[in-house]
């Protein structure tokens, strides 16, 4: 049985927690201990502004966030219902002034999230003691501020945050290369002492087992190999590196405190990444469970209307938008139904008969099992890729839209399944952010950094990209370049510390070299 923490949790809420937790467990959810804290809106806004962690490092953007949240609440524009933190134990915050039915709903929702955090594989590498870790980060950064000055440290954090999205979200799962140790100098011009290809032998047999002529030839061969190795210009990085922050940590000329600050920003970026990667699933899963637990177990009849009102409030779809809660819960329900009725596999896929498909029911009852499996292995990209179906798109009237350059409006583009799926997957890939790699850390053999943007048909925002290069330059200190594509032309954006330049790459571009100089 779990320890119920009584952090200022009133008795009535504690009773609801125990009840909800028991139901959640009975349904097969598997979660960390949950600590509910009841907060006033001001306190909740503060914690929400800090991204859920009461002890974050000092930075103005949390203040901005706070202002927006608390003002939005004061003016009656918006209200945060709840917050859950991926941590062991899991922390969740309740709003004191919520009605009891809301607290019930929120608690059930929280257990859904908690189960997802614990079991979804994309969260498996996250730090489960992040509560403590962020507090440590806060202390470290505060001490740097004391020593080096508030403005200096905060500005450096601004620069790091500007690059925050340049991480390799799959790297926690794939070891692409060995870690580079800055202090590992072995093999750097040191003469080779031993002779590894020499067989072990007794003294009197040595000349026979290891003939001197063979040894000599071998030594010569290795020597020439080493020469070749040495004469070849080492490319840094060996392969294009998507974890730009890691590359900077390893190679940028940073002071010790800067190195640490960058490492902190990177660590927190990796911690938050899976939440962005599984937004639809995570919210869908939590909503699935709050609706299941509420409607089947904990709700009392008198709460029905309020529950329905608030549930539909979260599920509401603004015209033309996509609500991740709604998409997630409906897809999960769809999967459950399909696997209950056996609507999957080659037989189902090949069936063209509308009537047969409509009546299809093999009564397999595999739905629950299937959605538990889904919550374990999928992220949003694979989830949509695997389970979004033509029927589903039609039933929920999904459409794809695109930007019309002439009118500067977004317009409905298509209701074709293929197009919808394509758009959706594009927006989910790398959280809808561009993929950028370090191609060369010693560009033109002058220690300049060369980044490469993998272009999928959507251009970067140039003004932002240039400002980001400026921040990158602060860390790298040598000129920085970004290869991207603008209007279908390969283009190089550069910043050398004072000037921005934009010039087309390749072809006969030299004559038509167009420079857009912007004074720093």
């Amino acid at each position, binding site marked *: 049985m779990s320890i119920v923490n009584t952090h200022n949790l009133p008795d009535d809420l504690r009773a609801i927690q125990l009840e909800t937790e028991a139901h959640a467990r009975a349904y097969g959810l598997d979660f960390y201990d949950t600590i509910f804290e009841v907060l006033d809106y001001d306190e909740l806004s503060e914690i929400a502004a800090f991204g859920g962690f009461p002890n974050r490092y000092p930075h*103005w953007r949390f203040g901005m966030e706070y202002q927006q949240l608390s003002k939005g609440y004061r003016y009656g524009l918006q*209200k945060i*219902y709840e917050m*859950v933190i991926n941590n062991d134990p899991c922390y969740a915050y309740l709003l004191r002034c919520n009605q009891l039915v809301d607290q019930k709903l929120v608690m059930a929702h929280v257990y859904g999230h908690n189960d997802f955090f614990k079991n979804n594989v994309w969260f498996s590498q996250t730090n489960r003691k992040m509560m403590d870790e962020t507090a440590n980060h806060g202390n470290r950064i505060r001490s740097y501020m004391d020593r080096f000055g508030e403005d200096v440290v905060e500005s450096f954090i601004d620069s790091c945050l500007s690059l925050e999205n340049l991480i390799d979200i799959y790297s926690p799962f794939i070891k692409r290369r060995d870690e580079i140790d800055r202090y590992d100098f072995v093999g750097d011009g040191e003469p080779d002492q031993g002779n590894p290809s020499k067989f072990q032998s007794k003294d009197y047999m040595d000349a026979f087992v290891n003939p001197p002529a063979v040894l000599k030839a071998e030594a010569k061969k290795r020597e020439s190999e080493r020469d070749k190795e040495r004469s070849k210009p080492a490319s840094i990085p060996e392969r294009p590196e998507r974890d730009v922050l890691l590359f900077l940590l390893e190679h940028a000329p940073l002071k010790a405190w800067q190195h640490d600050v960058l490492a902190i920003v990177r660590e927190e970026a990796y911690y938050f990444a899976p939440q962005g990667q599984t937004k639809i699933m995570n919210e869908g899963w939590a909503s699935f469970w709050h609706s299941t637990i509420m409607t089947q177990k904990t709700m009392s009849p008198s709460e029905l209307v309020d529950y329905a009102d608030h549930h539909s409030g979260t599920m509401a779809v603004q015209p033309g938008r*996509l609500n*991740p809660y709604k998409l997630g819960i409906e897809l999960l329900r769809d999967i459950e139904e399909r696997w209950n009725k056996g609507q999957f596999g080659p037989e189902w896929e090949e069936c063209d008969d509308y009537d047969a498909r409509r009546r299809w029911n093999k009564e397999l009852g595999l739905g629950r099992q299937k959605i538990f499996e889904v919550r374990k292995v999928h992220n949003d990209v694979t989830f949509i890729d695997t389970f979004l179906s033509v029927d589903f798109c039609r039933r929920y009237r999904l459409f794809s*839209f695109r930007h019309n350059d002439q009118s500067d409006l*977004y317009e409905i583009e298509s209701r074709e399944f293929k197009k919808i799926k394509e758009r959706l997957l594009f927006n989910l890939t790398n959280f809808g952010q561009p993929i950028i790699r370090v191609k060369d850390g010693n560009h033109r053999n002058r220690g300049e950094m060369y980044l490469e943007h993998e272009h999928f048909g959507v251009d970067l925002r140039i003004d932002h*990209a240039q400002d980001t290069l400026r921040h990158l330059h602060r860390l790298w200190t040598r000129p920085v370049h970004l290869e991207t594509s603008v209007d279908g032309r390969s283009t190089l954006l550069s910043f050398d510390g004072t000037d921005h330049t934009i010039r087309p790459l390749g072809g006969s571009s030299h004559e038509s070299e167009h420079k857009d100089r912007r004074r720093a």
Partner: protein
Amino acid sequence: MVRKIDRDANRFKQIVRGKIKSDLRKYITHGELIGRTGGEFVSIPLPQIEIPEFRYGSKNRGGVGQGPGDVGTPIGRAGDGEPGPGAGDSPGEHILEVELTMDDLAQILGEELALPNIEPKGRANIIEEKDRYTGIRQTGPESLRHFKRTYKKALKRQIASNSYDPREPLVIPIREDKLYRSWNPIALPRFNAAIFYLMDVSGSMTDDQKEIVRAEAFWIDAWLKSQYDGVTTRYIIHDAVAREVDEHTFYHTRESGGTRISSAYNLANKIIDEEHPPIDWNIYLFHFSDGDNWGEDNRHCVSLLRDQLLPKCNLFCYGQVESPYGSGEFYRELEEAFEDQENMALSEIRNKEGIYDSIKEFLGRGR
């Protein structure tokens, strides 16, 4: 108790006010807080700073939505927040949107922009009678029965007639005990305002500029309506000639041809004289244009303003929206002619983000 967030919040405020870290100032944007009033979304001025990062531009951008609509139906403007998923990625934060009334909006606006309340013109009083429930009567409808007084009177009677038993304190009023609230007429001064919107609809004003005017007029309306008991709005459009129109036409007319601003001033002056005598009305004139006027007309405008309009109105505001075609000379012309004019406010509105500064310029004088 000092909270941790206060440090960050103060720092943010200082950045916005430009006290520290001026390099961040260019990333400050407005209007992230979205409210809704009667089906229409309005954004409420709230400074935000965007840290630049590598991200996609709006070109070729798209996403997936849900709902009805045929192919080609516009569903939103680029820049009005990112459509589709991926916007807020904090976990488990439910955010709810709530309806606002116009009064709420005005109050929020006033608070955000620190607008002073308007002191209505003293001479412009219309005395109006209003009923206030301040009196007491012996007769009346039961719904207006004054419970406390009735109870007291009944209690007094029962004690006097010795029919009150403290152990069983039952008080039953009879017909004579019952007292009712009644009203007294009270004379209240009523302040009326007439708002004139004048807009240049010549060929050089594009839809973007009209959008700015519309947003600005929306906020001005909201604020003035919160300040006056009665507000009448009049719309005048002009190119080389002016005419009065209704609100819809005001925003949807597109004329071509030249610009003679004095035509609009003349018309406004005529309407004021005929229908809104300044003695009874607080008059507001808001003129929006891209600043392109026929050269010889400028002098005429200045004299019209000086001799006719300015003495009659509480406030004359000229908002110049930047257009790709306009020369913007009219602004300079007014600036020169009316340097220290108390009841004239000028502002140049470069883009949507300039709206709030401009409103502050217009209404920040408390007139």
